[in-house]
């Protein structure tokens, strides 16, 4: 089977998402599609899958032009998509999720669940995707859920499989298993499009690589002909400055001391299991680990959003175990949250209103219960200028700003105070390179001004670039502590997977 995208163009108001994109993939090969955020990969795939329609260009399947007006059309043509965020109904079983939309029924519409189960088991066995058809999705770990997504696609007899950022939520072990599955799918004759931003992976798994930048295809190559540096430059369009320039750390007193902390998650399991760590002023401590090993709960416990089960948290010498967010805030702690739109900002508020989200209750922004909007506006104007936030005015709603500028507002708000401890969780998630560089600079600047910084990030590269000391979390425990300058990605990767360098 041969799939070709010719000259695909898609315009949104203000943004040319796809600009005459050409792409092709055939049975038995893996095409790696690489691109920065906003490059147009998802738009392209949505067009391929029938969710959008292209303004110009055509999709050619086996030499014939195809028109997709809905996912149904794409599925019928043999294209299957495994989305980045799984499209699985949590309360349904594996079987129900797989057959949804193509259920085997009798003439009355009654589903033949036994037949469905049988077919699922068949595919499962044929492609080595072990799964129990009767389990509920919500009870399954992420890696297994992904297998269900793949079975869904195979059930519909897809010949071309599109994977959108499939390894984002997998442990290194699961990634290896996944690659094995992908290779066996290719060997079975499927064509695979593998969308990712991870350079190492695209080099490892692809037969061919296509790079998308600002809506255009800017290069096609193979792993043998290229390397990470070249790919990075293709993706971003300029030589990428990959090193964060920082001097040596000058650690002082401890600003954060965590002793034997145990924190339970929503299911009453210990997400943090006897963790102890220290952060000193003037140093950056990075916490590395794959998503889901307790980092979120750790940050929540340190910032007052979740009560610890046992253990102690001391901030600048004051006991902050189980303290409220406000109390911790008053101990000169800044928190850059993991999910800026959910926790860090009120999207419906203006930039000015957001600028005082955690300081509104004190002078100079209020006196008693009376808000001082003039002062708020003055401060907001000043900070927007100082932190280079691109916004038409401070009175526009937050939703009008790009992700990078939203994060800058948070950083402006947090760093403009006199802070002794900064807790930053995934500080550059989803940002463009320019914003990332800016925020990294600011973090180093804070450190040099004497703050202690705790960075929690699933991007190993970020942790390695910024940290003076690196801690690795695995299953709720700290399994390694490495000095920044001595850390290697391979060692850290092993720790993150629960192993250790022998």
């Amino acid at each position: 089977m041969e799939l070709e995208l010719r000259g695909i163009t898609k315009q949104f108001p203000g943004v040319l998402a796809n600009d005459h994109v050409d792409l092709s993939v055939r049975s038995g090969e893996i095409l790696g599609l690489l691109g920065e955020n906003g490059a147009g990969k998802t738009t392209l795939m949505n067009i391929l899958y029938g969710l959008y329609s292209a303004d110009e260009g055509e999709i050619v399947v086996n030499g014939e032009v195809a028109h997709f007006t809905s996912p149904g059309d794409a599925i019928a043509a043999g294209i299957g998509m495994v989305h980045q965020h799984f499209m699985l109904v949590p309360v349904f079983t594996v079987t129900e999720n797989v057959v949804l939309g193509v259920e085997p029924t009798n003439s009355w519409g009654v589903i033949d669940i036994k037949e469905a189960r049988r077919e699922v088991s068949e595919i499962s066995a044929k492609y080595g995707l072990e799964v129990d058809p009767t389990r509920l999705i919500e009870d399954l770990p992420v890696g297994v859920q992904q297998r269900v997504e793949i079975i869904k696609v195979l059930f519909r007899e897809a010949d071309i499989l599109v994977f959108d950022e499939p390894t984002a939520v997998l442990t290194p072990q699961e990634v290896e298993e996944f690659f094995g599955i992908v290779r066996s799918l290719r060997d079975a004759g499927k064509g695979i499009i593998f969308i990712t931003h991870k350079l190492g992976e695209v080099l490892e798994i692809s037969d061919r690589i296509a790079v998308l930048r600002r809506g255009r295809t800017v290069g096609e190559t193979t792993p043998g002909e290229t390397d990470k540096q070249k790919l990075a430059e293709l993706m971003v369009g300029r030589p990428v400055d990959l090193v964060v320039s920082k001097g040596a750390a000058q650690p002082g007193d401890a600003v954060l001391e965590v002793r034997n902390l145990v924190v339970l998650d929503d299911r009453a399991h210990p997400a943090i299991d006897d963790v102890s760590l220290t952060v000193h002023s003037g140093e950056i401590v990075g916490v590395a680990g794959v998503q889901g090993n307790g980092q979120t709960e750790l940050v929540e416990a340190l910032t007052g959003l979740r009560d610890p089960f046992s253990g102690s948290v001391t901030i600048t010498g004051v006991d902050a175990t189980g303290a409220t967010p406000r109390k911790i805030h008053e101990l000169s702690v800044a928190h850059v949250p993991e999910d800026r739109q959910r926790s860090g900002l009120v999207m419906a508020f203006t930039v000015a209103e957001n600028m005082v989200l955690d300081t509104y209750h004190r002078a100079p922004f209020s006196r008693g219960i009376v808000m001082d909007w003039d002062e708020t506006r003055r401060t907001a104007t000043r900070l927007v200028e100082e932190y280079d936030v691109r916004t038409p005015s401070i009175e526009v709603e937050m939703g009008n700003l790009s992700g990078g500028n939203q994060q800058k507002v948070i950083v402006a708000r947090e760093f403009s105070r006199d802070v002794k401890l900064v807790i930053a969780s995934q500080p550059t998630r989803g940002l463009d390179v320019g914003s990332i560089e800016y925020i990294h600079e600011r973090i180093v600047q804070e450190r040099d001004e004497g703050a202690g910084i705790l960075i929690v990030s699933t991007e190993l590269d970020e942790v390695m670039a910024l940290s003076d000391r690196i801690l690795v979390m695995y299953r709720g425990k700290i399994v390694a502590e490495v000095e920044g300058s001595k850390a290697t990605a391979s060692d850290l990767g092993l720790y993150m997977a629960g192993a250790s360098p022998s």
Partner: protein
Amino acid sequence: MTAVAPTIELEEIRTPQEIKRSRYLGITYIAMAIFVLWAFAFGSVGNGSATFGLARPTDPSFPDFTFNAAFVAFIVAAVLASMGGVQLARGFGKRSNLVLAFGFILFTFAFLGWATAQSGLGSFSMVGMFETTIVRSVPITLGALAGVLCERVAIINIAIEGMLLGGAFVAVLVASLLRTEDASLYFGAPMAGWIGVAAAMATGAVLSWVLAVFSVRYRVDQIIVGVVINIFVLGLTSFLTVRLLVTNPDLNSGAIFKSVKIWVVGDIPVIGPIFFNQTAIVYLTFILVAALTFALFRTRWGLRSRAVGEHPQAADTVGVNVYRFRYLNVMMGGMVAGIGGAWFTVGTVGRFDENMTNGKGFIGLAAMIFGRWHPVGAMSAGLVFGFADALRQKLGILQTPIPSEFLGMLPFLATILVVAGLVGKARPPAADGQPYIKE
């Protein structure tokens, strides 16, 4: 390739909330036991026996159930107390809710025994009570089913009240029109009633179509739409009642469905008169509950509908038309509510009064939540609330010192307890209330 990643084994982990809840439940049982002891057991001493009539007055072949009220109350208290003990010690696990229901049944039994004994009458037609329960449960169950149909596709339907009211009005109006002497179209009694029901279904469909359009297409908040529909229907039906029905009473005398006894099963003692000697709408209700349960969980339509309600985006990506399902199911819900509305007029009294539904739609909403969005649960809740309703009436006859209004509050208090999570988790369809925006 490495071995299969182990799937997580879930133990019976008890969160601190669960332990607290378990304790409250145990204390509740014991409190109930003490109350039964004090009020009903000691309160019944010397009042002699209570008699529950288990046969219809016209059919005295089946013996009544007579017992000593005080004695029974003592036993109930003992059972409740031991239940409380077990609950505090280790809880009932999966059967917690069943046990809770059982506890309440015992409590009610003791209560009725006491009430009957202390009234001058000494006897009490249990069969009559249950018959009335079934009858009174119908609009609640139908309202709850309408709610289930809508909420399973994630559309909140506050307008059940309006749909009931509108259906009631249209049903009697149409049925009366078809029975006026000089009408060009004349139908006899049951037929006119059925056409009235059909008209009520159409009304419900129209109203629910409005709900669907506003919430799916214009993405207005569904609760707002519901409230607006309720106000609209109340205003319009009251307006038309004064304008048309008061001046033309022959437009307001619709056919009344008569009870139909089902052959053979209708003669079974006790059960027969209760279940199998009811009007057609009652039978229709039971059929609907069964049909809906089967359809929701065993058919393609059911799977897709539930998917639309739980994760519309997932359904969309596999080619399920989310909008179409929402429109269709909501309109079906409207039709069911229409039938429920018809019960008020054509199904019972045969005339329409302003605002005659008087909050039954909200009880239906409560029943839906109480029944955890499941058709059988909705029916059970409808029966429970119907029982409370019937009890209110009977208590008047028994001249109990308890004001009937408090009994009337029961369904509402019960729903609050459910929603507050004190009676187990109430988990609605995940996408409930959120409009689906296709990218």
